């Protein structure tokens, strides 16, 4: 019956929806590697970028639900990168990560509209729970 197909289809969509696409942007490879592994294990699709330019390039090629963005990086800073990516896609949510008290930059980012900012080091549980929240809201909105 048609039902079977629909179920399969909707099953596919749910599957797709749950597997949020995440981009981790950080100049430190240790951060990229550990976050990628943790988030992949938690069931997300994860890509990584080494700096702002690389992030803009990747975001131009594909859609990311969430971008975890470091603030202080060589080249352009995280906030500049967010500005550019926002021009490409208004749906992406940004989580800013910072090890520095870069208040002016953070304020600027908050004005631009970011989902949240967290201070490094953060317990990985914190990131997981933020992502879960986003996921829940997204599922709710889509239904």
């Amino acid at each position, binding site marked *: 019956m048609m039902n079977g197909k629909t179920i399969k289809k909707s099953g596919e969509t749910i599957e797709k929806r749950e597997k949020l696409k995440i981009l981790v942007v950080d100049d430190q490879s*240790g*951060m990229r590697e550990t976050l990628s592994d943790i988030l992949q294990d938690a069931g997300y699709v994860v890509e990584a970028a080494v700096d702002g330019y690389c992030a803009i390039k990747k975001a131009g090629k594909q859609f990311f639900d969430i971008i975890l963005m470091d603030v202080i990086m060589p080249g352009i800073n995280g906030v500049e990168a967010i500005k550019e990516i926002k021009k490409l896609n208004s749906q992406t949510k940004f989580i800013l990560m910072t090890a520095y008290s870069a208040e002016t930059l953070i304020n600027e980012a908050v004005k631009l509209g970011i989902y949240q900012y967290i201070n490094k*080091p*953060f317990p990985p549980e914190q990131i997981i729970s933020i992502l879960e929240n986003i996921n829940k809201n997204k599922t709710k909105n889509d239904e």
Partner: protein
Amino acid sequence: MKKSHIDAKDAWHSSHLWMVAIFIMATILGLTIATSISISILRPLKLLDDSAKLIAGGNLKELLYIQKKGEITSLANSFNQMILSLRHQIRTSKTILEAIADPIFTVDMAMNLTYFSPACEKLSGYTSKEVIGKKCYEIFKSDICEKQCAVKSSAKNGTPTYNVEVQMKTKDQKSIPIMASASSIKDEQGNIMGGCEVFRNISEQKRMLRELKEAEEQLIISEKMAALGRLASCVSHELRNPLAIIQNSAYYLKHKFTDQDAKLHKHLGIIENEIISSNKIIDELLGFCRTTKSELASNDINKVIELSISRIQLKPNITIEKNLAPELPPVPLDKEQIHQVFVNLISNAEYSMLNNGGKISITSRQNKGMVEIEIGDQGCGIPSSDLKKLFDPFFTTKIKGIGLGLAITKSIIQNHHANISVNSVVGEGTSFFISLPIAKEYSKTVS
């Protein structure tokens, strides 16, 4: 012939009489001349002689008065002229001596005081009358009187001594620092008659020098603190990245190893805990760096004290006693920072009584234009050798201490234009005193 004989006899007789008369006359004349010489020459000479003796003895009070005119009178006038000129000279040297602002005294070879200038009187508190004739070392009792007296050595070998720093005693036994120079006094033949010392009270210079040194030290400390602050800030931030990465790795491993290897999980736990304490150190360091700016707003200090007490968890053997003055005028303060100060002081007080327990007393009171806070404990106390270093960054006697608590406290207190001091007795306890200036609009009506 006979007549002529008689004549001759008469003639002899009469000539004899003449001679007698002349002799008498001469005697009378001689006497008269002698008397008159005695009156007009010898007596004035005697007067001159007396006067010369008086002058030699130092008495210049009397002038000579001779009525008759003549050679002697002119001599006497010259004599008087000399007395007047001597008087003038002496008056001039005395005026000069007395006009010299620095104290001067002279001694003879036996170190007996022979002159004691008014400036000397003023500084020492002794009058000239009291000390003339007494030994100078019995009066000044300076610290080098016995060993290397400047006047004595100058008087001995005739060479001046310059700028010796000495402590002398005033009449009321106050010790004051002086800078002294000494030289010998010689007579015309070059024989040394005694010594002379000029000195100057250098308390003020010493105080200024001390203040300058303190200010310099303070400047060095604050420069050090600023440099340290920048370094600490830099290092702390840089450390946060690797710590975050280690934390991530530990998390990943913990979730990957699902088998129940207890030791493995224990070690992952250790890594996580140590990351937490490293983060605390970083937070404290950064807190220290952030104390450079304070945002002051009028606040009730008692409320901040209450808040700090409520936020601190003390060990059960420690109690807090509050003596807070009601209705204190508001104080301009940065609430979070002053809270931090109280937390630092209270936790130090707690630590000092960790073994035996005890009471922390917190007192607030108004004193003139200031609000004073006292935080006292009954703990181990601080040895005086540590008191100087107490507020230095990284000074600690605790195994797990960083030594930033009081450095941060001091820096915050300085930002508040306030003061912090400490009073401690080893084995009895310690009190920290903070005095904060009252808000301007209130201090006018208050003080």
